[in-house]
């Protein structure tokens, strides 16, 4: 709780004092205090459920606090509303982006500031240059006229960043801004952040990637269970100490892979698989019990390879062999029949039935495996599967009937994982398995994957989180321009090597 020494005492842009918020008797925030100075990046750290999101919502006016005050430029407010927050220069880039899927990129960028300006008319012709300007300023490649619906996750995120920046925000809150960005894109974002700091903008940065946190922020505020634990200069902290403050646990990101027994056979073999315009001549093998990392820039074709293997966009040529025999994968059901499972990139829309119960989600991929001979659900088997996975994956939820919407990112990802484990696929592919997942959950999810691999499952992790790949992958495939350019093995599986190969 030490207040940091500055050269001269500047008035904070934003102060929150003793914010208390309860939801039906459960305390989400109990007296949280925070200040943000002009030109600084304050990192807000904490595990999912620690109250970060609630705090952001209160600052941005989406929720009202029970007590406490929000002071912007020295003026105290007992609560905010969204319009007031925007008027006061507060902008939030939400984790789910809050974009309009049916509108173009340009419009998404411009609309919010147009709303805040309370003008009545809207001119597409005037709007586009403004959007163009910010996109160019950030050095991005975004098709301004594309519908946001059709963008990749990363492009959506970039659009959301552009939108926040276009309206001259003075207080910018970024909720996990880098989760879907590749390393180079993160670097670019950081340059932008520096530029904003120079302009006197204050940024609150929420991230689970601790090395990034320390790199970008001047101060770090750590919350645990709705309380301030520590606020300190970034230079005095290490990932280890942050993790310790957040979880009370020691963080282990060291390389931990099992020895593959020499007799363990090849479960998947690709021979010159190609899809025009996406990837060419992709060949690799995956052994039983092996965890294979696939990395590369966004658009390198890494996601397309996975989606072809899963039958979403079928490949055009080449041979896929599973357990030595060639298989035809032209649809998702082909892939599933062949024993392939896929945890998709976009968890919320592709992976989960948000309003359905955890139980329904877990069983969603394997109703036939839990059917009696009369094509009825075998309720006993269903129950056993759900209970076993619920317990084994340690999903934190009041019960299995709770809707998935009520879960945090890490717990939601466990549910997606559970859906596939309920089927026991031979090969499980995971695209960004720990994106938006807190540290504790991340370690647990990797642990689960290691355990599954140890039991003979072949696992492919598509990720650009180098530490994560190093932590659990036997080998790492580097994809560039639709081709596999490197297969890193043994000591080559190291953070710096991976980053270097990806960016080459």
């Amino acid at each position: 709780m030490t207040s940091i020494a500055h050269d001269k005492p500047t008035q904070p842009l934003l102060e929150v004092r003793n914010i208390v918020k309860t939801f039906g008797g459960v305390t989400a925030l109990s007296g949280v205090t925070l200040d943000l100075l002009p030109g600084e990046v304050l990192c807000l750290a904490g595990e999912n459920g620690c109250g970060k999101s609630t705090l952001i919502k209160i600052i941005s006016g989406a929720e009202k606090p029970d007590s406490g005050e929000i002071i912007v430029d020295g003026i105290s407010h007992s609560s905010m509303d969204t319009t007031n927050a925007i008027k006061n220069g507060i902008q939030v880039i939400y984790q789910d982006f809050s974009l309009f899927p049916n509108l173009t990129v340009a419009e998404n960028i411009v609309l919010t500031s147009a709303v805040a300006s309370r003008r009545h008319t809207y001119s597409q012709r005037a709007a586009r240059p403004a959007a163009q300007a910010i996109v160019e300023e950030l050095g991005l490649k975004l098709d301004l006229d594309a519908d946001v619906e059709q963008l990749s996750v990363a492009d959506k995120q970039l659009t959301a960043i552009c939108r926040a920046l276009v309206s001259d925000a003075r207080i910018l809150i970024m909720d996990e801004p880098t989760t879907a960005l590749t390393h180079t894109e993160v670097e670019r974002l950081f340059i932008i952040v520096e530029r904003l700091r120079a302009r006197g903008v204050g940024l609150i940065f929420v991230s689970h990637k601790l090395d990034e946190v320390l790199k970008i922020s001047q101060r770090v505020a750590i919350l645990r269970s709705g309380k301030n634990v520590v606020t300190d200069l970034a230079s005095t902290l290490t990932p280890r100490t942050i993790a310790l403050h957040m979880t009370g646990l020691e963080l282990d990101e060291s390389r931990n892979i099992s020895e593959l027994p020499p007799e363990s056979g090849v479960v998947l073999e690709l021979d010159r698989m190609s899809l025009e315009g996406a990837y060419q001549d992709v060949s690799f093998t995956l052994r039983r019990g092996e965890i294979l990392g696939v990395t590369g820039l966004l658009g390198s074709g890494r996601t397309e390879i996975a989606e072809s293997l899963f039958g979403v966009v079928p490949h055009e040529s080449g041979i896929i062999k599973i357990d030595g025999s060639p298989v035809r994968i032209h649809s998702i059901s082909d892939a599933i029949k062949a024993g392939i499972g896929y945890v998709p990139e976009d968890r919320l829309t592709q992976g989960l039935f948000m309003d359905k119960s955890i139980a329904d989600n877990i069983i969603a991929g394997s109703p036939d495996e839990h059917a009696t001979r009369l094509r009825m659900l075998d309720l006993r088997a269903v129950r056993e599967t759900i209970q076993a996975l619920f317990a084994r994956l340690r999903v934190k939820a009041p019960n299995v009937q709770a809707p998935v919407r009520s879960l945090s990112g890490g717990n939601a990802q466990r549910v997606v994982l559970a859906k596939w484990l309920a089927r026991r696929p031979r090969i499980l592919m995971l695209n960004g398995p720990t994106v938006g997942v807190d540290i504790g959950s991340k370690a647990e999810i990797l642990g689960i994957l290691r355990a599954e691999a140890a039991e003979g499952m072949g696992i492919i992790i598509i990720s650009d989180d180098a530490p994560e790949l190093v932590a659990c992958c036997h080998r790492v495939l580097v994809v560039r321009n639709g081709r596999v350019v490197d297969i890193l093995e043994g000591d080559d599986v190291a953070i710096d090597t991976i980053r270097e190969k990806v960016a080459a």
Partner: protein
Amino acid sequence: MSAISLSLPTRLSRLRGANNEGVLALVLLALIVGMSIANPVFFTLPTAFSILRSSIVPLIFALGVLMVIISGGIDVSFAAIAVFAAYTTVQMHQNGAPDLGLVAAFLLALLIGASLGAINGFLIARFRLSTLIVTLGTQGIFKGALLTYVGSRYVADLPDSMAAVSTTNLFAVDTASGGAYLHILVVPAVLMAVGLAWVLRYTMFGRSIYAIGGDVEAARRAGIRVVRTQMVVYVIAGTMAAVGGMIYVIMERSASPQILVGSELDIIAAVVLGGASIFGGRGSVLGTTLGVLLVQVIFNSLILAGVPSAWQRTAVGLLLILGVGIQAITSRKSSRAKVMDETIQKQEVPA
């Protein structure tokens, strides 16, 4: 696809329009050509004017429904609102109120329509109820209230000011195949279409409707006053319904509380056919207009085309399915093409 140079598909997709309007226009054209071959009389000015005339009221309704559908809702109560507003206005005159004059009569009807629309809007925006549920409910309430409390009599004679408009034509042309008359009330319909197109495209209110239809939560976070905008949408939809009702009554030269109700699904079909997404966020005035015209051509050409009357209902259904089917197939193809485009684009990102 791959054999053709990239520019052609792009150009084609421009032609197709954001909501498949191009394909719809082609379907409409094909239908007109087909009908004209079946019976040359179809391809004459009187027929064209007649179809335009029959499209006036459906178009006005469809515009209101379009706005509601873009905002992510659906409205099945507009016909009830239309009858309520128009019949009540006429009935007041019938009960001894002086002839208000056309403008005042319209204003009264619009006021009624706006109030009923406000009821819809209030229930939807405040209670966050499903729009289908609310408008299904209010549809019954409005019609029931009209017949219970306002009256049920057929009114044969409109106030003079309204009756005068009934037989006014914008122009009348004598052609070989008989007189062709374009009714004056085409004008307000066209004005409303143009007006709504402008509002949707060039005002913050219009863009807010799209935004809300795209993602309500995001709209709220962006500072759009969702409740207020939804209220306004339903008030305007109610007002437009009232205009439609008044025009219907004027063109019919009589008023009865039993008119219009039952036509809701045809109107909604025309709007969806016009490319509006039933899930909200998408739709255009141009597409809706084409959709309405297509449905009206289907409805009003079967006798000319020589379809026996016993088979006309079937023919309407078949043509509808045909039109929608072509739409569905082409839009599916285009979405497949989009996936390809996207991957190509990604490929071009420099490393």
